[in-house]
């Protein structure tokens, strides 16, 4: 009889261990098609901050920090672009390789360009419109990690600019991989 109790106890422990092993997010590693839910917090409403005047084009935030990232993961975060022109304006919003890097951060590999998608920048911004654009970084399962810490930029350019000198605003994306 006592063997039964011992066996049932071990069985329960075994089932629990198996559940922990196979449960939920473990599938992220086994099945690259399942990407984890982004965990980015929403930006603080701009109304609450000391934002530039309405007739100035601006970009927010200045940097996005992604931590514990890994192959197979997805990170999304909105950037906010304001059109400071009094007319509808087309902006080019694009991934780009940084000109220079934060201390300790290294360049992205060429493949990173394919991991970044930008949603919402395909139509012009109306006069003084402020728009959130979703930036999604999806690192494929099995992809080569650029570095433990690496950086890329999201560039915003006002296409109505003319002349020799033009301006560009960029958000730094600072990626730190999981240990």
């Amino acid at each position: 009889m006592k063997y039964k109790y011992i066996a049932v106890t071990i069985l329960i422990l075994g089932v629990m261990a198996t559940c922990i092993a196979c449960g939920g997010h473990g599938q992220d590693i086994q099945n690259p098609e399942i990407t984890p839910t982004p965990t980015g917090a929403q930006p603080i409403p701009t109304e609450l901050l000391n934002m530039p005047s309405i007739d100035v084009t601006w970009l927010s935030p200045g940097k996005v920090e992604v931590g514990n990232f890994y192959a197979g993961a997805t990170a999304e975060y909105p950037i906010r672009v304001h059109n400071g022109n009094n007319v509808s304006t087309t902006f080019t919003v694009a991934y780009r390789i940084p000109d220079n890097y934060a201390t300790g951060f290294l360049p992205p590999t060429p493949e990173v360009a394919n991991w970044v998608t930008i949603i919402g920048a395909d139509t012009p911004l109306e006069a003084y419109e402020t728009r959130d654009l979703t930036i999604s970084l999806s690192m494929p399962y099995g992809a080569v990690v650029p570095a433990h810490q690496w950086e890329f930029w999201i560039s915003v350019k006002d296409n109505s600019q003319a002349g020799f000198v033009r301006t560009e605003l960029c958000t730094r994306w600072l990626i730190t991989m999981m240990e």
Partner: protein
Amino acid sequence: MKTRRIGMLFGLLAVFGLLAGLLSPAVAFAATSADVTITGTPTFIAITGTDSWTINGLTGDSKMDVNTTYYSNPLGDTTSPSATVVDGECKFTVTNASSNVALDLTVNIGNFSGGDAMTNSNLGTNGANSFGAYTYYSGMTYTGKVIGKTTGSAALYSDWSGSTLKWGIELKTQSGAWTSGTAETSTATITATEHV
């Protein structure tokens, strides 16, 4: 006896399940979505400062000679800025409308199109069909000028929190003779990023 056999069977199954669970650490302790953290700093990046520049058109006749160094210096197209650059030697002005943040400013200078289509050597020096470029700003020691590349220039000004900054470009035209005789154009892009 039958009870003991059943118990042993249960025991074997249980041990197998336990081992299966514990011997799969790669799965058991795989990354979870909760592990990925994303933080956006609530700052605003905003600069203004578009401008035009006709090389050798500030005090000259707007025609470029080969192998000649020009400056966007209102005091003279071929006049080098002072050892310590002053406002009057800088044609361009960038205005900071950002908030809650210090900026890094970087200037990239593209290849020319049209005419002889000079390319940027990215070295600061010219060549037979390439130009060399530097950028500078008011208040700096001129020898600290920064090479203006097509991409990947070093920051012209790092950790800037001022309201306006006067700056300029030095450009040395190609050493080879012109073959086209028609105008060529380029753009310079000043990029603002959050200083980190």
